[in-house]
C-alpha cells in the first residue's frame, strides 16, 4: 500500500476507521528508509522502538483514544535529544552519546501520540547550507542524483520529501529549514524566535535558533505548529503568547492582504529563472485579491556579514561544553566547519575586537529588525525567494566557505529579526525544485499559512 497520498490528517482518519494500523504505517516508512538508504537521510533509525510504540498506539486507537498524532511516524533532526536514543548532532564527538533526557518538543510530540521513527542526518552541529558537512556522510537530494538537498536540516527535508515519514522536526538558525524545504519541494516553517521551545535541542547560535518543521502540505505544517508551539518553563526565551488557532487561517482567502516585495531580494545575484517563477506566483496572488506593494529593506546587504559574526560567536561559546569529560570525545574531533566557526567566533569576541565585530554586528542587527518593523506597518507579509540559486552539486561549493555562506542571503534576515518565515514549493526548473519564502511580523504564523495556502491551492 502506498501511503504517500496521505496527509497526517488523512492518515489519522484512516487509522481511526481501521483502514490500516499504525504498525502498517511504521513498517511502510521503515521500508522506504531502507530502500532509499543511499540518500543517507538518517543517522539512527529507531525501528524497534518505533514498532513497539506503534503496537501501543494501535491498542490506544482500538480503545478509542484520539490524539492529533496518535500512531503517526515522524522524524527528528539528530540535534534533538531523545532519552535513551543516541543523539550525535552528526558529529563524531557525540558518536556514542545517549541522552539522559528528551527535548521539550520531543515530549510534546510523544504526548500527542507521535512515533519517532528515527534521527535524521544533518550538517554537523547544524553548520551548513547543503547537508554535506555531516561526519556521517552527505545527504543526497531525492530529486537529482549527486545534488545537495540543502541544509543544515538535510535529512529531515529528505525524509519528508521521500515519504519516509509524515513530518520532520528541524532547526533554522540562518535558513536551515527553509533552504532544504525549497531544495526538496516541500513546506518548511521557521516559526517566530521563541515560539517553539529550544530546550533539549543542541544549540547552534542561541539568539538565532528557531525550532520548526517540514511537511508536505500547509495544513500539516499548521497542525504541527499547534502542537509544538507555546511557553516552556525550561526555556526563558519562550513568551507566554497564546498559540493561535492556525487552522482557522486556512479557511480564509487573501482578499485585501497586503504583500510587500522587497527590491533588495530581487537584485543582482538572483537566478533569473527563479525570479520569473516567483513573479508569476505574485501575479497569481494579485489575481486572488492580494494587494502587491514594492518595498525596501535597505539594510539587507549587511545581513550576511552581521550573521557571520553573531552566529560563530555564539557557536564558539555553545560548543565550549564539549570537552569529552561528561560525554562525548575530545575537542580535536570537531569537524572542519565547526573548528572554523569556533575560531572565527572566538576571534570576534576576543579582547580588542569585541566592539569592532560583535558589538557592531548587534547594532546592525537592530537596524535590520527596524527595517522589518517599518515594513510591517505597511504590509501584512513579505514575499522573497528562498535561495538565490538552484540546488548545486555535491562538492561544488565545499572548498570555499564564503560562497557557501552567501547561499543564506535571503534567509538569515528572518533569524536576525526573529520573525517567522515559511518556504513553499512553486515548481521545478530543470528537474530541480524552487521555493518561495513568505515572511511576516512576530507571531504571524497564521498569516503565513493563509498566504501559503493561496499559493499551493488545495
Amino acid at each position, binding site marked *: 500500500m502506498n501511503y504517500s497520498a496521505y496527509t497526517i490528517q488523512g492518515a489519522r482518519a484512516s487509522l481511526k476507521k481501521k483502514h490500516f494500523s499504525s504498525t502498517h504505517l511504521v513498517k511502510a516508512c521503515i521500508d522506504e528508509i531502507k530502500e532509499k538508504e543511499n540518500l543517507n537521510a538518517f543517522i539512527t533509525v529507531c525501528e524497534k522502538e518505533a514498532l513497539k510504540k506503534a503496537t501501543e498506539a494501535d491498542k490506544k486507537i482500538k480503545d478509542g483514544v484520539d490524539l492529533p498524532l496518535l500512531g503517526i511516524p515522524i522524524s527528528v533532526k539528530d540535534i534533538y535529544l531523545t532519552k535513551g536514543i543516541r543523539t550525535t548532532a552528526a558529529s563524531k564527538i557525540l558518536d556514542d552519546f545517549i541522552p539522559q*533526557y528528551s527535548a521539550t518538543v520531543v515530549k510534546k510530540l510523544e504526548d500527542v501520540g507521535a512515533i519517532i521513527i528515527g534521527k535524521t542526518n544533518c550538517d554537523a552541529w547544524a553548520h551548513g547550507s547543503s547537508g554535506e558537512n555531516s561526519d556521517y556522510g552527505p545527504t543526497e537530494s531525492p530529486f537529482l542524483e549527486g545534488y545537495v538537498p540543502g541544509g543544515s536540516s538535510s535529512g529531515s527535508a529528505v525524509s519528508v520529501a521521500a515519504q519516509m515519514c509524515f513530518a520532520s522536526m528541524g532547526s533554522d538558525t540562518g535558513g536551515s529549514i527553509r533552504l532544504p524545504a525549497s531544495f526538496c519541494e516541500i513546506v518548511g516553517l521557521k516559526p517566530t524566535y521563541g515560539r517553539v521551545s529550544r530546550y533539549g535541542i543542541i*544549540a547552534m547560535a542561541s539568539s538565532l535558533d528557531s525550532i520548526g518543521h517540514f511537511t508536505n502540505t500547509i495544513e500539516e505544517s499548521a497542525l504541527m505548529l499547534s502542537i509544538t508551539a507555546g511557553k516552556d518553563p525550561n526555556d526563558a526565551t519562550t513568551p507566554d503568547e497564546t498559540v493561535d488557532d492556525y487552522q482557522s487561517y486556512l479557511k480564509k482567502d487573501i482578499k485585501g492582504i497586503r504583500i510587500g516585495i522587497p527590491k533588495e531580494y530581487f537584485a543582482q545575484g538572483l537566478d533569473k529563472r527563479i525570479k520569473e517563477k516567483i513573479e508569476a506566483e505574485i501575479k497569481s496572488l494579485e489575481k486572488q485579491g492580494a494587494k502587491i506593494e514594492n518595498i525596501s529593506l535597505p539594510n539587507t546587504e549587511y545581513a550576511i556579514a552581521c550573521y557571520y559574526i553573531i552566529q560563530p560567536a555564539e557557536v564558539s561559546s555553545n560548543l565550549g561544553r564539549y570537552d569529552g569529560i561528561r560525554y562525548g570525545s575530545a575537542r580535536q574531533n570537531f569537524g572542519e566547519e565547526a573548528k572554523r566557526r569556533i575560531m572565527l567566533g572566538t576571534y570576534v*569576541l576576543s579582547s580588542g575586537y569585541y566592539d569592532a565585530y560583535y558589538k557592531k554586528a548587534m547594532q546592525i542587527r537592530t537596524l535590520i529588525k527596524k527595517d522589518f518593523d517599518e515594513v510591517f506597518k505597511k504590509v501584512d507579509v513579505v514575499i522573497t525567494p528562498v535561495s538565490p540559486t538552484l540546488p548545486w552539486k555535491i562538492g561544488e561549493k565545499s572548498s570555499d566557505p564564503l560562497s557557501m555562506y552567501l547561499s543564506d542571503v535571503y534567509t538569515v534576515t528572518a533569524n536576525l529579526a526573529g520573525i517567522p518565515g515559511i518556504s513553499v514549493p512553486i515548481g521545478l526548473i530543470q528537474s530541480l525544485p524552487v521555493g518561495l519564502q513568505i515572511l511576516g511580523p512576530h507571531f504571524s504564523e497564521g498569516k503565513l499559512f493563509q498566504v501559503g495556502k493561496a499559493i499551493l491551492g488545495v
Partner: protein
Amino acid sequence: MKPVIGLEVHVELKTKSKMFCGCSADYFGKKPNTHTCPVCLGLPGALPVPNKTAIEWCVMLGMALDCNIPLFSKFDRKNYFYPDLAKGYQISQYDEPFCLKGSIKLGSGKTIRITRVHMEEDTGKLIHENVNGQGITLIDFNRSGVPLVEIVTEPDFDNTKDVLDYLKKLQQIARYLDISNADMEKGDMRLEPNISLRSNTTNTTNNTNQQITNKLPNYKVEVKNINSFRFVEKAIAFEIKRQTEIIEKKGIPVQETRGWDENKQKTVTQRVKEEASDYRYFPEPDIPPIRWNDKKLLMIKKQIPELPDTKKRRFQKQYNISQYDAEILTREKTLADFYETCVNDGQKANLTAKQVSNYIINKKIDIESTLPAEIIKNIKALTIYLRIDESEIKKIVERVLNENKNAVGDYRNGKVSAVQYLIGKVLMVSKEKLEVSRVKKILEEKLND
C-alpha cells in the same frame, strides 16, 4: 611603602534551588553528582532559567551595602575552560551588574568603597587523589550552578586589620539578611585579595610627588580562593613582605595570580599576566534581561531588617549600654533579637536593659537552650538585693558612721571586728533588705578612706 589592597569576595546564597535549575543547592557533604541535572551538568541542549529569589537576594545585599541598583541589568557569559566548569562558560554579569557603587564603614571610621555586587553561578568541585600510584582529578558537579554573589571593593585597604574588619562586617550583613550562612569552613565565603605596594619614598624632591603617590601601582598581585580569615591575614602579610623585598632590590613585582599554600606558609604563582585569560564576555542569549521598577525595588528594600551598625547605635542609645556591650549583643541577629525580648520581659519585672545585658554577656548565655523567661527569673533572684541604689546605701552608711564614732575609732585603731557591729547598724537602719557583702564593701571603703 604603603600597601594597596582590594578585595573580591564570593558569597554563596542559601536558596533552596540552584541559580539556573531546580536542583537542590544544599550540596554540602552530599553523595557526589547526586544534585545535578541537564542544566548544571552542562548537557547538550539544556537551558538556564534564573532563580528569582537569588536575584532578589543579590539586590538586597547590594542595597544593604548602600549600592545603586540600576533599573536595567543582564547576565553575560564568561568563557573559559576548566574541568570544573560544565558549559565552557560561567553565567555571570559583566558591564551591567545588579548593584554598583556602595560602601561599608569600618570600625576605624574608614569607608571602604564597593565597586559592584553581581550575580553568578558556582563551579563544580575538583578533588585531587592518588589511585594506584597515579595522580587523578575527580569532579563532583553538586556545587555547579549554586548561586554566588561577588562583592568587589576598590583598592581602599592599607592594612590587614581593616581587611578583617571588612570581612567580618560583610559576613555579619549576609547573615543578618539571612541570605547566606557565610560559613567559611563550608566554603560559603571565598576571599580574593589583590595586593600591591605604593612607594612613598620615590621622587621626594619632585614637586609632582603628591600626584604620583596617589596614583595606583602599575601592577597587582591577586591571591585566589582563600577560605579563611586567618589565611587571608597571613597571605596579605606574606605578600607585603615579598613585594617589599622585591621593590627594595629595585625590582617590580610581576602582575600575576597567586594562591595561598597553607603547608608552606606562603603564596605561590598560579598564573602570570601573559597567560591571563581573555574571557570573551558577551550577553547571555538564553536569559532575557532584568528590568526593575521602583515598586519592585521598594518591596525588596522592605525585606531588609535593621542592620548591625544601626542596631548597635540604637542599642547604645535606647538601652543605655556601652558600645562594647552593644557590639557583642548585635554580633548576631539572633542574639540581638533574644536580648530585646528579654529586655521587654524584664521591663515588666522592673529590670533595666543594662541589668539584662550584663547578665547575658557575663554569664555567656547560650540562647539556643535558654528561654527569655528563665533569664528574667535568674536575674531577679540575683538582684533582689541589688534593687537599692548604691548612693542610697552610701547615705545610710554615712549616717551610721556619724552616729557610731566609737566603733569607727575602734576599727581605725586595729579592731577589725568593729565592722561587724557597723554592718548590723546599717542593716537595721535600712528599710530594705541589703546584701551584707555589698554593705561591708562600702563600709570598708569609707573606713579606709
